[in-house]
């Protein structure tokens, strides 16, 4: 994928290994981004298969495809996989690949730390997924409510879950530190914070959300793990423990987490709509500030997940109100997107369709979210399929559609080839129709009294037809995903060559070749405006219409030597050590041997890391 191009600039000639070793030791943010993306797709197939099994089991009353035990594993792993191993890494793929380019930088602030984040994430994902082959996957729900998650410590499933989430959290905190530092210190000259593309902004907000929310769930996960393995009494009600504490710690993370999942998609949509409307984003600063407002308010609404837990009416009223008013910044974003396409010249290709689909579906999900803030009626909806419908509208109709929009938008930049539009349209329409068929009926199911997380339902409750519809819809979505994979496969070698700027883009990534050279920019651009690349190509006439410049403003050719980070195997080594440590910690006390081994491997990796210099340049 990484093709080196002949440039006037002399890139320092470090020998970069090819093949598998090259991928294992890479420190190039673009290759790491590709790794994240491919991993997300692979785990997406796993999570999707889990979803299809769930839908098969529920297609008819008293289904017998899965046992109760298998079903509980499926819905637990479906949730955990889709949140932590699919949507988050998919967003991380875009952030890794494009954040430095959007800022006009050569790489992230800490390339090797970036590699470490990726490898820790992969090993965390493997750690969780391997459980299917080790006597059963976690089965306590992705929310792991104590004391159910601390019950039966002899069965290691939930130990894997708690440790796996700690490991994945570590990966996310490291990459958040990395991205925030990148944004704060690596911007090109003239790239002020308010000139940053909205996607970069949303990535920054997401990094802050992860940075401040993950520590809280980590504490809770430590407590669950200790309750299970050391006999502590955090969640043992008989000893005075407080099961509700876990819910607070979990949702203090869990609610910001849902904004972690949706904000990158909002960022992508804010890039795609202006490009294909040929207009700048309407109310750019308002979109950015509403993103920040959503991030801030996201920390003040967590208890709306607990309206039936007995917090008392005063707390419930307060959290109901904060939840309601988070709809305001969300609404602002939607109106601004409408303002963006209003009066534009819309090019309805696949990327644009996914963004428009995002708006439509996200509005439905957002509005059903407002109905949850009505505390008394949430007591009817809580833990029913109505909630499942709501969050799939925002996370599938929102996050996943946004991500696919980004895939079709940026694919030519990453691969140098366009995805096939005909297959893309099929992909979009199948997914759009399938999505509404799957999750639309769930609104009705939930209001008609179907609870979540149940492996079967009896006849005579009126759930049969809607469930069958949802199952048909789920397979429609699966077909759409297959169409996408086919599209990827076909265009690998036969896709239309994209060129550097296939969409007449507005931001810096379109000013460099596709795929970008390893050093991104021959010369670091000097930014003079929002949508800087657009302004290099067009000037506005008196009535505000764009007029193409005679010749686009070209960057001068640079002959300055460029130093790139060297490949390093230390990150993957350190991550592997963490993996071994975690495996050992599940099987205490005799797992201590593995814990020690893993710790030594990690130390070895980190020590080697601190001893090697990042670039092969001698320090003077």
């Amino acid at each position: 994928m990484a093709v080196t191009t002949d440039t006037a600039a002399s890139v320092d000639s470090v020998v970069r290994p090819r093949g598998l070793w090259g991928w294992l030791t890479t420190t190039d943010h673009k290759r790491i981004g590709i790794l994240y993306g491919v991993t997300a797709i692979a785990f997406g197939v796993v999570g999707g298969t889990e979803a299809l099994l769930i839908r098969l089991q529920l297609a008819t009353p008293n289904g017998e495809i899965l046992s109760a035990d298998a079903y509980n594993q499926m819905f637990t792993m479906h949730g955990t996989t889709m949140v932590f191993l699919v949507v988050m890494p998919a967003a991380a793929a875009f952030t890794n690949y494009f954040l430095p380019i959007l800022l006009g930088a050569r790489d992230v602030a800490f390339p090797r730390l970036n590699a470490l984040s990726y490898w820790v994430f992969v090993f965390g994902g493997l750690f969780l997924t391997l459980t299917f082959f080790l006597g059963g996957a976690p089965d306590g729900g992705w929310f792991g409510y104590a004391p159910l998650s601390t019950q039966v410590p002899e069965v290691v499933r939930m130990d894997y879950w708690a440790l796996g989430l700690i490991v994945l959290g570590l990966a996310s905190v490291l990459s958040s530190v990395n991205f925030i530092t990148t944004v704060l210190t690596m911007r090109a000259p003239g790239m002020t914070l308010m000139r940053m593309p909205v996607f970069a902004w949303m990535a920054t907000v997401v990094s802050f959300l992860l940075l401040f929310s993950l520590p809280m769930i980590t504490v809770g996960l430590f407590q669950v793990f200790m309750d299970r393995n050391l006999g502590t009494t955090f969640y043992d009600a008989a000893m005075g423990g407080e099961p509700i504490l876990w819910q607070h710690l979990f949702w203090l993370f869990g609610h910001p987490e849902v904004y972690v999942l949706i904000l990158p998609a909002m960022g992508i949509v804010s890039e795609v709509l202006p490009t294909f409307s040929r207009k700048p984003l309407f109310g750019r600063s308002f979109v950015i500030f509403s993103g920040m407002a959503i991030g801030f308010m996201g920390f003040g609404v967590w208890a709306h997940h607990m309206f039936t837990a007995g917090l008392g009416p005063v707390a419930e009223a307060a959290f109901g109100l904060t939840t309601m008013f988070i709809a305001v910044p969300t609404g602002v974003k939607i109106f601004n997107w409408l303002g963006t396409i209003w009066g534009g010249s819309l090019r309805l290709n696949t990327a644009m369709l996914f963004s428009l689909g995002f708006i439509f579906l996200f509005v439905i999900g957002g509005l059903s979210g407002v109905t949850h803030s009505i505390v008394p009626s949430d007591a009817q909806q809580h833990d029913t399929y109505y909630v499942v419908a709501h969050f799939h509208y925002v996370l599938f109709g929102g996050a996943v559609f946004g991500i696919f929009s980004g895939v079709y938008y940026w694919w030519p930049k990453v691969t140098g080839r366009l995805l096939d539009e005909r297959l893309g349209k099929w992909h979009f329409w199948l997914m759009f129709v399938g999505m509404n068929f799957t999750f639309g009926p769930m609104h009705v199911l939930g209001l008609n009294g179907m609870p979540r997380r149940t492996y079967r339902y009896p006849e005579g409750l009126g759930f049969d037809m809607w469930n069958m519809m949802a199952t048909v819809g789920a397979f429609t979505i699966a077909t759409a995903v297959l169409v996408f994979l086919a599209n990827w496969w076909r265009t690998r070698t036969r896709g239309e060559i994209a060129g550097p700027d296939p969409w007449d883009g507005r931001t810096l990534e379109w000013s460099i070749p596709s795929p970008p050279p390893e050093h991104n920019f021959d010369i670091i651009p000097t930014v003079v405006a929002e949508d800087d690349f657009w302004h290099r190509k067009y000037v506005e006439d008196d009535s505000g219409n764009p007029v193409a410049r005679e010749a686009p403003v070209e960057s001068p050719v640079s002959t300055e030597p460029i130093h790139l980070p060297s490949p390093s195997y230390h990150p993957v080594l350190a991550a592997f050590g963490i993996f071994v440590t975690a495996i050992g910690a599940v099987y205490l006390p005799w797992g201590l041997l593995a814990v020690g081994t893993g710790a030594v491997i990690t130390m070895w990796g980190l020590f080697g890391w601190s001893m090697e210099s990042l670039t092969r340049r001698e320090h003077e």
Partner: protein
Amino acid sequence: MSHRVIDRPRRTLVLLVLAFGLLAACSGDDPTNLGRIVGGDLPQNSLDPAGPIAEQVDSLFWLVFWIATGVFALVSLALAYAVLRFRRRGDTDRPVRQVHGNTRLEIAWTILPAVILAIVAVPTVATLFEVRAAPGPEDDALEITVTGHQWWWEFHYPEYGITTANEMWVPVDRTVYLSLTSADVIHSFWVPRLAGKRDAVPGRINNIRFEAAETGAYVGQCAEFCGLAHADMRQRVFVTSAEEFEAWAVAQASPASIPAEGPAAAGWEVFQTQCASCHTIDGTSASGLFAPNLTHFASRTSFGGATIDNTTDHLREWLRDPSSLKPMSPDLNDLEAGRVLGMPDLGLTEQQIADLIALLESLE
């Protein structure tokens, strides 16, 4: 790229939209018509309230629902209009004025939703405090203590000294006040037509109030994931006239009488050795607290977390191998740890099973 192929999915979509439109056109103005579209009987429909408290919540839901529908209609119409009106025709772009924003508009569409939400917030908070209020002495509320177990419900009537399982009897038109707690993990009590759900949390007591306006049977189920057989943890609420309820309560409060001879007496012998460490029969030496109280077992319509109809055949299957009817993971060693995850397979002989059934069916 041929245009016909692109059109095909679009045509499919148009057909689907038309189909949904027809469905919608068949319904009248009554909001609860959603139920009629679905057809059939919906015993767990939260939109079919059967008491004043559930009705309050229901009307609040519909208020918000119609406001949300209005907002959705406006936004999606604007979106559809913009897409149809401004889409590029052919391959050339029309010149586009580069509009960067409009502060007045921004202020308007920040304030407008906030105002709508503020309007919705008033009835929300009012209803919340109303339905959460504890009943006063003038309400003459019937108090019931509800304990969730994996995977069945225990109902205790302190006023009457009754302990029963999975099936709750309450009088019509009288406030019922539940105190919920749990013996193991978190459960959630939910009978949709009577009230929203409330969690049963170990180590604390949560309350919920409801009142049924019509006699009849109501069903619900545990709504908080509680492990293996979460789906099979259901409950039934029988709403009767006040007289009928009193008669039931008197009958339930009386101790059981074990027949002195016959198969039921033989069953009692088996019960003492095999069952009494977990089950209680009031008025006898059997006083186990891990499992449902069986004092008037024969008066119940169901067992096994209200998922299995109480028939001789079902009982026989249950006693042969409980996990064949309901997934459970019992382990007799767990009794030491005070953890019971369902009824174990006791390896009873057919004779023992027949005797036990005779005993159980005598417990009127």
